[in-house]
């Protein structure tokens, strides 16, 4: 047998947090089969990186985040992220990336430009989103056609810097989104607090195991939270793009009474596009700040942000405050550092 000393194997197991790919039998002997694997697809590596060959098996199709040279079977990753297999489609969800819109997403956005018949809205995507004047609820009832007067008064609906909540109605070829606010749930935002966290990122499947926290797509992204004491109720909107809006809840007319078409005019006309903030009591402001701090804590620890987690973490923060009060330390307004971690841990435990 010729002399042959192999160089040390690269530290494959480092990426796998220990001995995922290596079996250790009773004697402590090691099966090295796991180390000779050829491609990322077979080894179930935690993440793939740009240029890495995912597979060279012709049975797979390439999806987002991958490339395939013409006339070759090998599929390479173009991103650092987790590998997602959907039947025979291979795609890579990036660990971190800008939000890429997809139809039906609920977004919080900010008007950056007013044009003659549309607004351009910043939604933290690679391109600004569009909101056509025809895609909003015009005052005077939903069933009205837009008129030249509306176009002249375009700034009276939304002007630069206004925040709004909207839904992605369509996508252009270049990936930019077309929004609409044709629902009473959507429209201008007032009386609240805006914050930006990281969004859904690579718009692919469920968030991978290693992906950092952020707002994820879920059934309910607009919800109401009740706060103890004088805080009243809060509206929380978690935009899929990572923009979050926390506001005081007022004017429940729309929800409690069943609005008929004949009454719509009144409702939409009166307050839909007002920019006047109501006066918000100190107790409510405090609770808004608490919710914001709780969301920030979730993001910092890298936990998904959805209704369940926000509510549970909020409750946990209240309980911690109560405990502290009973112990005689007094309440603390600070939610950060060790305390933030504690809150998230409690919330995580409860959501299991």
């Amino acid at each position, binding site marked *: 047998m010729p002399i042959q000393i192999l*160089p*040390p194997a690269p530290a494959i197991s480092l990426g796998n947090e220990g001995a995922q790919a290596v079996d250790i039998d009773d004697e402590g002997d090691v099966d090295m089969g796991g180390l000779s694997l050829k491609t990322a697809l077979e080894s179930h590596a935690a993440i793939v990186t*740009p240029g890495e060959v995912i597979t060279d098996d012709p049975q797979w199709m390439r999806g987002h985040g991958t490339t395939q040279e013409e006339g070759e079977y090998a599929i390479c990753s*173009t*991103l650092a992220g987790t590998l997602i297999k959907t039947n025979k489609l291979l795609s890579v969800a990036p660990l971190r990336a800008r939000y890429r819109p997809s139809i039906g997403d609920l977004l919080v956005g900010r008007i950056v430009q007013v044009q003659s018949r549309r607004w351009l809205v910043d939604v933290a995507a690679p391109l600004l989103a569009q909101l056509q004047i025809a895609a909003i609820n015009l005052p005077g009832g939903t069933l009205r056609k837009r008129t030249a007067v509306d176009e002249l008064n375009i700034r009276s609906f939304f002007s630069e810097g206004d925040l709004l909540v909207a839904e992605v109605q369509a996508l252009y070829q270049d990936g930019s989104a077309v929004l609409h606010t044709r629902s009473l749930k959507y429209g201008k935002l007032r009386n609240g607090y805006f914050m930006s966290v990281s969004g859904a*990122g690579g718009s692919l499947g469920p968030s991978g195991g290693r992906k950092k926290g952020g707002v994820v797509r879920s059934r309910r992204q607009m919800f109401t939270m009740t706060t103890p004491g004088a805080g009243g109720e809060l509206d929380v909107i978690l935009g899929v793009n990572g923009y979050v809006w926390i506001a005081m809840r007022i004017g429940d007319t729309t929800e409690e009474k069943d609005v008929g078409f004949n009454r719509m005019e009144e409702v939409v006309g009166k307050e839909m596009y007002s920019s006047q903030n109501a006066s918000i009591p100190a107790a409510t402001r405090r609770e808004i700040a608490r919710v914001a701090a709780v969301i920030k804590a979730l993001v910092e620890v890298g936990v998904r942000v959805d209704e369940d987690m926000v509510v549970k973490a909020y409750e946990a923060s209240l309980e911690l405050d109560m405990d502290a009060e009973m112990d005689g330390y007094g309440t603390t307004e600070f939610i950060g550092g060790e305390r933030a971690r504690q809150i998230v841990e409690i919330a995580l435990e409860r959501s299991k």
Partner: protein
Amino acid sequence: MIDERGDRCPGCTKWYWYQSASHTFTDSSRTQSSSQHLHSSRMPLDTSSYTLSQLRLDGRRWNELRRIHAQISTHAAADGSSYLEMGNTKVVCTVTGPAEGRRAGGQGGGGDVLDVRVEIGLAGFSGVERRRQVRGDKRIFEMAHTITESLNRTLLTNLFPRSTLSISLHVLSQDGSLLAALINAATLACVDAGVPMKDYLVACTAGCMSAGAPPPPQVKADDDGSNDPILDLTALEEQELPFLTVATVGAEDKVAALVIESRFHAGRLDEMLAVGVDGCKRVKELVDEVMNMAPKSRASVRRAQLTRTITDAFAVKLRDLIWSRGATATPPIRLALVARPRVALHCSGGIFRLIPVPVGGCACRALAVGRLDARLKGAHWQGFGTMGSDGRAVAIEGGFT
């Protein structure tokens, strides 16, 4: 446990830099087969017996990179960010975008692809002399241009029409290979920002010891290696020696950018380029490692390095031991990390487990227990390995039972 600046060689007072012992293996395998390397006394693992004349000013050998340390996601405000050190050259990169171009309408271009913009800021304290950055410095402009043009072909720019990617690079400390460090940092930040790319764009520098204009050297048997090309130059070396900066796409020989600003004989180019491209391959491995380890703490990375160092050293010693037993053939030895900090030495048919045991101080002992291949008549070998604080010097005591 490992000193930030590098390690002190046990045999002499020189500091030497390392990546990890496994890279030392790949270094030498470039010129000679690894088995030869392990036998030859010319390039042993510890540098104590290495003649000083073959070492560079900072104690590196000709084909060694400086220590590369990099992190990603360092800045919360940016879409992607990185921090990169190549030796004492330190660079921060932040990436914003892809986002709609701020100067809409202007700049012509049509904008059917991603517009990559690169800005470089030199900190006043980054060089030897404190100096304010001059506006419109052509050298800086050229570097930014090189990075832009290289990334234009590496990133999949057609996926982001009408968008802009702003890359801003900040130089905190300059000690040679600046352009290479900037390119590597920009690549890492782009990966962090989730911008799709064909492969990593990686860069490093290579130089040449014999400056002037002698004709290309004849390969002589008694070549002492003093005419070797060298890899990854420091500022001092850049001042004195001709060098080139080369950027490749991925680990293949695909040169994306090449910048030479010094004069040397044309016959030197291919060897310098070969060393540079080879360096890029290793930089790619290291950058890839950074991505794979991103969520991990620095401590665990260090521990992994330490463990690997032990395994490498053990492999060499173990081979010597097997040979000293009069074996006529050596079974292939394969090393692997099992579960940190345990290490397995795979010796076809026989398994060794190495268990690094932290001992007082910084020293680390490793216990090796195992049995050898049947061809060595079932010899059972047991011993201790001792490792210095540098994670390199290993002595193994023990014998076959």
